[in-house]
């Protein structure tokens, strides 16, 4: 993996790439909220299945999916172990495992993974720069978006700079350890990075002023809302309405 590949981790052949990023963000938000308010396990399962279908449509490989889901899987395992321990009749001495709270743990795990799957499938596969632009078009705070876009732009450069400095240390016989002198060297590395970053930010500001910057960012990119986006949105809304009606039924 090239250092900058984190920004382009998937091929864009997935069917979901056909849809406008804004459509995907809004759908993700609506579906996530629905998953959060639903309590009936059958409906949750239905939502989870639709999330899985979206993941298949997004063109993400199983390996990438597992990598992204790893945090949630670990969370789920820990939940299964520890939640039953919070039952009132559980005692450390007997270590008697009560099954009373297992369905509760399963429900929480199901909710969390459904939300995660929606986020990964719909938002996680948007190219990061497009995501920034889509956020502006959705009237997100301009400063937030700008910070996000700067992060994308300079993350790689700082990482490269840090690797260079680290290699330079290793080249001169530095051995990573927890001894005081090694920790001091790491301190110097971080200090150097901060100084370089400050210098660079000054030069970037100069570059912006050179081109007439006066506090506003303009967007070159414009998205187009197609018929297929409208269809997708309608589908999502119908599904969500249906699920909520079923949830309200006693």
């Amino acid at each position, binding site marked *: 993996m090239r250092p*900058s590949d984190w*920004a*382009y981790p998937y091929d864009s052949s997935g069917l979901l790439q056909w849809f406008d990023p804004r459509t995907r963000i809004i759908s993700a938000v609506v579906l996530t909220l629905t998953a959060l308010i639903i309590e009936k396990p059958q409906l949750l399962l239905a939502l989870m299945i639709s999330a899985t279908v979206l993941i298949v449509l997004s063109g993400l490989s199983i390996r990438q999916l597992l990598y992204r889901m790893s945090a949630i899987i670990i969370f789920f395992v820990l939940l299964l172990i520890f939640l039953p321990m919070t039952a009132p009749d559980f005692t450390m001495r007997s270590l008697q495992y009560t099954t009373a709270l297992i369905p509760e743990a399963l429900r929480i795990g199901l909710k969390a993974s459904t939300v995660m799957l929606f986020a990964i499938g719909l938002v996680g596969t948007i190219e*990061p*720069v497009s995501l*920034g632009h889509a956020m502006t078009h959705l009237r997100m705070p301009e400063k937030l978006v700008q910070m996000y*876009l*700067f992060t*994308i*732009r300079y993350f*790689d*450069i700082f990482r490269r700079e840090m690797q260079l400095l680290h290699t330079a240390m290793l080249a001169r016989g530095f051995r990573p350890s927890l001894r005081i002198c090694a920790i001091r060297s790491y301190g110097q590395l971080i200090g150097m990075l901060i100084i370089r970053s400050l210098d*660079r930010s000054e*030069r*970037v500001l*100069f*570059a*912006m*002023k*050179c*081109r*007439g*910057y*006066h506090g*506003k960012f*303009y*967007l*070159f*990119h414009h998205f187009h809302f197609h018929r297929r986006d409208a269809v997708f949105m309608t589908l999502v809304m119908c599904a969500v309405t249906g699920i909520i009606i079923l949830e309200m039924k006693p």
Partner: protein
Amino acid sequence: MNVLTVHDLYFHYRHSNPVFQGLSFELKDNERVGLTGSNGSGKSTLFQILMGFRKPDRGTINWYGSEITTESMFAEVRRKVGLLFQQPDDQLFCATVGDEVAFGPFNLGLSRSEVLHIVEETLASLNLQGYADRITYHLSEGEKRLVSLAAVLAMKPDVLLLDEPTNGLDERSKELITQHLAQLPQMMLIASHDQSFLEKLTNRRIDLNHRT
């Protein structure tokens, strides 16, 4: 007429030796001047002073016949004078090439359609057609340099200040950027160590080692 007159310039960074002690020179109309000097002789610093990013200890800077002192006057100067930075990564702060080239024209207050036209035209003039949607950090060093130049040229400046434009480029990219620069109509002040490059592009040299 002199486009730029620098008179009796003094400058030093905090806690270090003076960079300029009484530097004076001028850039006449339609002139292309090379700026030479050893490492640390202040070529980049001079460009930053000329654009108003650093304040000299003493001395005056005249652009287009009037002395420039305040930030708002320098902001006007920056509309007419384009600075190409030594490090393209410092200059290219937008995520895509299109955003990058459009940034200047948008700030000049042009309309969207005008900006789109300028972006297309500028990229085409540097043989960068189809680059508008490319991601800046995926470009090669040579491409980054050309995109930086496109971003500067999109503001249609009268004067170009070029800080080591061939630094760190391979022979082919160097050749390419030399060709593009040679075709441009602008007046230029070019800082470089590359003597043959300066010979091709400039009609006069200023050596900072001997002037200060």
